[in-house]
């Protein structure tokens, strides 16, 4: 559409993304050169995930709200994520500890790790079938009994095998969440680390810490992931407020 006259909202720069320049004092610019690229950000965040900790058994997981800490426009991020999911490149999982915490994994990564984990196990055939049939066609986070039996033609015993292998987790009677095998330790370490990092912010004088300073701090044994991973997590989940100052971004604990 050739718009000869500017939109009123552009004149007041309410929605317009300013490209590159005009940094706010102190606040680090997002580094978006042009339109929002969620996929590139995802790949950046994935590098923060510690693979060695889980002996390479888990695919790299990024939480959806970590993206919100990098990009300002949440609605756009959500839309691009649903596009990526439609294309089949990205998978979203309900992690279980919070109704709003969703984990994102690249589909190729997920398939590779799950099949590697199934090597030599009896359930391998069923899991294979599941990955081939269900994942490309269905974008849901959970499946219920009807769907599994009728649409995908799995038998009860096959469903039990899938739960045993960790690909499905029980949600309630007759329905299951899609899940990442062996992700229990991930969730445990995430919650532990989140608590520890939040504690670090709370213990500071005035309950606030400069983001750059927090990144440099030594972490105790509770924090198993890189501290940057946890910082993106707490900013995105809005457990801390981000305040731009002349010395950089300040993270202040939110009281509730």
């Amino acid at each position: 559409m050739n718009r000869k006259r500017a939109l009123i909202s552009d004149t007041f720069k309410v929605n317009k993304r300013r490209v590159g320049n005009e940094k706010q004092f102190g606040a680090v610019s997002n580094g978006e050169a042009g339109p929002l690229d969620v996929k590139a950000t995802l790949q950046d965040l994935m590098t923060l995930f510690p693979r060695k900790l889980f002996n390479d058994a888990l695919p790299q997981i990024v939480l959806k709200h970590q993206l919100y800490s990098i990009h300002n426009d949440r609605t756009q991020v959500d839309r691009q994520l649903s596009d990526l999911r439609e294309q089949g490149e990205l998978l979203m999982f309900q992690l279980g500890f919070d109704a709003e915490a969703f984990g994102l994994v690249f589909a190729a990564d997920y398939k590779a790790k799950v099949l590697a984990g199934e090597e030599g196990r009896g359930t391998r055939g069923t899991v294979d079938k599941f990955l081939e049939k269900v994942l490309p066609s269905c974008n849901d986070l959970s499946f219920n009994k009807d769907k599994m039996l009728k649409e995908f033609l799995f038998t009860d015993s096959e469903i039990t095998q899938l739960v045993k292998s960790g690909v499905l987790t029980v949600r309630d009677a007759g329905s299951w969440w899609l899940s990442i095998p062996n992700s229990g330790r991930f969730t445990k370490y995430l919650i532990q680390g989140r608590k520890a990092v939040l504690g670090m912010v709370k213990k500071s004088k005035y309950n606030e810490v400069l983001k750059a300073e927090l990144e440099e701090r030594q972490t105790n044994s509770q924090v198993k992931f890189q501290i940057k991973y946890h910082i993106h997590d707490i900013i995105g989940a809005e457990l801390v407020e981000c305040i731009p100052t002349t010395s950089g971004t300040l993270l202040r604990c939110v009281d509730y």
Partner: protein
Amino acid sequence: MLGFLTARQAGLDDPLRLRRAESTRRVLNLELNHDRDVDRIHSNGVNTIDIEVIEGRYMLSGGADGVIVVYDLENNSGKPQYTCKAVCTVGRSSRYVHRFSVETVQWYPHDTGMFVSSSFDKTMKVWDTETLKPAEVFQFEGNVYCHHMSPIARKHSLIAVGTKDQKVQLCDLKSGSRIQVLQGHRGEVLSVRWSPRYEHILATASTDSRVLVWDVRRASGSLFSLDQHNGDKSKASSEAVNTAHNGRVNGLCFTVDGLYLLTTGTDDRMRLWNSANGKNTLVNYGKVSNESRKGLKITVSHSCSPEFVFVPCGSSVAVYTLHTGELVTMLRGHYNNVDCCQFHPDYQELYSGGKDCNILAWVPIVRPPDVEEEGTAAKVGGCTQGVIRPGSPEAWS
């Protein structure tokens, strides 16, 4: 701005475009102005504010002490420093005053001769503004959380009332009786709103986390329930299926054209819905903190581009862009929780009331006068007192 003016002059642009541009500029410049004040009459927290739609001159406020006050918002003094005076009050000394806190007040949509107030003393009173006596009193079995009269209704004069009871009651002003009951909620009804587009469409929000949309002409029940996952049953846990929020829904507001509906809930989320088919537009506003146990009054701007929504968030008012979910600014100024806010469409001002018993007026920043030459700077500085505010009534004449 000059671009818009020249385009309007040359006839390249619709007159409405210049108006929308100026309204948007004014809303983006809202701030507290020490020249504008509202009389402080309430002694115990302001729960609700309503500005009449005909002239935009009189404002009603209802407080936690049961007192109802009418203010005159118009500045006839000729000076920029102005306090909105209370014209009349239904105070504690009146025989007919509400015994407990007033939760909702609303002017009669067609003239200021009448207003309706509802309160925790389980009554709803229809007052005559001239004599300040109730012309009609409706009794209910539970605390009345909110009521609303349709602003566009010609064929009916129904007041929808949400109480502690699960049934939404419809009271008729003409006959003075409760003629209809809408059954469908499983919890207390915290907020009710008529659509500003169709006079028979009503939306109700309740503590059972659901928002139901009704057509009052239909006998058999609600039209549909708003579902936050748009029917995608896989996203949520099984209890959260077919709910609008993951907690109590306490704020409801239609946009001015009636095409979209905003809801806020105690799960700290605000959602924008398409009011025709009930689909969640999935605009992500982030965390909109909400701790209110009763209804929260949110409001939207009028004829701006883009539209803004004003939400009381703790002790400040958050301003979001409606369709993109971007937080524009937080208006800080209250000393305690803000309970209600109301937008004045003609002057693009926001009035907000809270537990600190103050009603604050957020006014667009006055544009400073242009200094043409160095020599006249002193003269211009001296006569700022007489400067006419760009949006004030005097500037139009």
